[in-house]
């Protein structure tokens, strides 16, 4: 049997880890473990010099196993696996110990954190002793893509892919394309028509030979894996079986229901309307109260459902600018009206947006600030003969006074919420939601449109509140990622599937019963179970059900995990 030669690398991550874990002491102790040939600490293991150090050591010290103790494997496992490959070592001869997300960032006692880091690395070192080289498996990429959602994001993504000559299946739940942008009159900050943005996209998609549009259609379930997905859909009376290599989820948002905030009296007072309802009026060129007359005083209340712990803590990002846009439009539509902006904080970031705020403030618009930490404004019906319909009562922060703002129409700038179907869609394609039910990206900075499921990308407001330019950017980014995989034609997939040792299998078929993918079949002749490696997703459930230990979950084998447990408690190095 080949001699095991392990290299261990303890990362400082600048001060992120080094501040809480005594990385030098840890490396020195780990160096004394059996089979550890070399143990080093270094400022940034993921940096080029850090990776080069591993490559160099593998060659120089003839290492055949590597442990990196740094951030979460969810962030840099693949980075280091590549480094191993560059040094000619099989990528699976690697293990990571997570001492940042699960040690230095969550503990505040340096001694305890150092002890824990040491245990975790001992576990990883013990485990890597039992790692085995696994062959790569590459699969062909079906160049077709499924785009879920026909709003501005989905349309942009579909065109980007189709213009490169690839088939796109665009599935939209509603009866027409366009999403929420179809209901918008003008866009900020240039006050261009939203139709100017949207109509050409819809026209091109509808007339593109490579795009097949399915309206009134939802996706219940997507089967398969990157490069080879499939789904059955029902559109009208017809059923279709679609096959595609990648998925873009662009299912958008749901507007916040302001009825949840009782002090706004939405749907109780006739002229309290949402920003969406005002868009409709502006689009129709008819801004009137429910009684058909023009309002003389219009107030716009910001952050309705946003930036408030009772509803949503996050900022919806587009409402401030939309509200400013409304003031511009209302100033044109109702030249004599009094216009009020009742805001909590004016957030005018983005190209041309602060300038837009400055120019709007010169248009005879009154800006008043309410305190979001205190009571929200209260909209009451005005007394008869007051000369206006409603009074908005609140503490005005800038003047420090309790005031009542008169209004005939109140516009509520409603928050963007995750789509009401977000959970169902997440289930269908196998991706995760964050606490606010927006989808989680693989990495917030380095991989913002990918998900933890290979081949499934997210774009637009389903990932978090954003405006049109940001949504389109994400759409094109997701499309670019997919175009790259189509151009390569194949993709390497995990080979951590289950495998049966036929000599040990007793033919009880327990594994077949527990497999969620019907990936295991029974060979009657040999009286053993057989794993279909294409269908197996490597969950390992069969491995824990097998009574004889015949079926093994590769890279998560019994001996690997059991040795990791032993490592956590081993005292071996203290004795050295």
């Amino acid at each position: 049997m080949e001699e095991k030669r392990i290299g261990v690398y303890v990362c400082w991550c600048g001060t992120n880890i080094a501040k809480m874990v005594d990385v030098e002491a840890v490396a020195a102790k780990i160096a004394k473990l059996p089979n550890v040939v070399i143990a080093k600490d270094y400022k940034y293991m993921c940096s080029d010099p850090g990776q080069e150090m591993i490559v160099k050591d593998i060659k120089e010290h003839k290492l055949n196993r590597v442990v990196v103790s740094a951030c979460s494997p969810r962030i840099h496992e693949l980075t280091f696996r590549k480094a191993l490959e560059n040094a000619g070592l099989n990528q699976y001869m690697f293990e990571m110990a997570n001492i940042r997300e699960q040690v230095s960032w969550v503990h505040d006692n340096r001694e305890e954190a150092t002890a824990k880091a040491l245990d975790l690395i001992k576990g990883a070192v013990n485990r890597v002793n039992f790692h085995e080289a696994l062959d790569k498996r590459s699969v062909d990429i079906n160049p077709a893509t499924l785009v879920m959602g026909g709003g501005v994001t989905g349309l942009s993504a579909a065109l980007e892919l189709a213009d490169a000559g690839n088939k796109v299946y665009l599935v939209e739940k509603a009866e027409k394309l366009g999403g929420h942008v179809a209901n918008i009159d003008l866009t900020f900050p240039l006050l261009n028509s939203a139709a100017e943005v949207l109509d050409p996209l819809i026209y091109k998609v509808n007339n593109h030979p490579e795009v097949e549009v399915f309206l009134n259609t939802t996706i219940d379930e997507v089967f398969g894996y990157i490069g080879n997905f499939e789904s059955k859909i029902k559109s009208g009376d017809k059923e279709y079986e679609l096959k595609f290599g990648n998925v873009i989820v662009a299912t958008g948002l749901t507007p916040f229901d302001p009825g949840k905030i009782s002090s706004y009296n939405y749907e109780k007072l006739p002229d309290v309307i949402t920003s969406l309802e005002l868009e409709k009026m502006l689009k129709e060129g008819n801004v009137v109260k429910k009684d058909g007359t023009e309002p003389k005083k219009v107030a716009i209340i910001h952050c309705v459902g946003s930036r408030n712990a009772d509803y949503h803590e996050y900022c919806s990002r587009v409402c401030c600018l939309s509200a400013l846009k409304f003031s511009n439009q209302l100033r044109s539509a109702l030249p004599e009206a009094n216009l009020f902006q009742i805001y909590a904080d004016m957030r005018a970031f983005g190209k041309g947006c602060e300038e837009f705020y400055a120019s709007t403030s010169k248009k005879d618009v009154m800006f008043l600030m309410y305190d979001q930490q205190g009571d929200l404004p209260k909209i009451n019906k005005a007394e008869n003969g007051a000369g206006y319909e409603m009074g908005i009562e609140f503490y005005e922060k800038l003047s420090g006074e309790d005031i009542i703002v008169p209004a005939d129409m109140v516009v509520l700038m409603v928050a963007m919420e995750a789509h009401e179907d977000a959970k169902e869609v997440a289930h269908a394609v196998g991706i995760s939601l964050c606490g606010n039910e927006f989808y989680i990206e693989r990495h917030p900075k380095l991989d913002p449109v990918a998900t933890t499921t290979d081949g499934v990308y997210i774009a637009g407001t389903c990932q978090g509140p954003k405006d049109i330019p940001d949504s389109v950017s994400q759409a094109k980014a997701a499309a670019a990622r997919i175009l790259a995989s189509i151009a390569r034609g194949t993709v390497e997939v995990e080979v951590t599937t289950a495998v049966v040792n036929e000599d040990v299998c007793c033919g009880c078929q327990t594994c077949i019963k527990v497999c969620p993918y019907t990936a295991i079949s029974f060979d009657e002749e040999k009286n053993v179970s057989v794993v279909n490696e294409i269908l197996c997703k490597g969950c390992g459930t069969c491995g824990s059900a097998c009574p004889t230990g015949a079926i093994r979950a590769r890279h998560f084998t019994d001996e690997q995990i059991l040795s990791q447990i032993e490592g956590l408690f081993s005292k071996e190095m203290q004795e050295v």
Partner: protein
Amino acid sequence: MEFEPKIVSFLCNWCSYTGADLAGTSRMKYASNIRVIRVMCSGRVDPTFVLKSFREGADGVLICGCHPGDCHYHEGNYKCLRRYHFLKKYIVQMGINPDRLKLAWISASEGREFAKLADEMAETVRNLGPCNVKDEMEIFD
């Protein structure tokens, strides 16, 4: 010195491990007693892993998986749940207090919940005192 337990925690890759990472990226502080072992699915947690943990000196074992219905592999967490109920009974026969073993559902977004769970588990096991299985088993070694 006050007794500080060691708790082995098996976390599924997709929900619970990600949730534990989120506690980290959100810089939430919790007790340092947990030693995490990552598995792809809570369905991979072989009862042997739990028994082995106690055998090696764990004072507690915490298993976390995706919430029911959210399993990345459809139903691995249900398989885990069944084994958990079995284990709860089994460890009593081994002389281990059943409170030393806990199964909980932690989603990828529940960093706060994970931190809270880690603290609670540490507190429970701290109050139970050291688990003596390892010492008792030494007799057979």
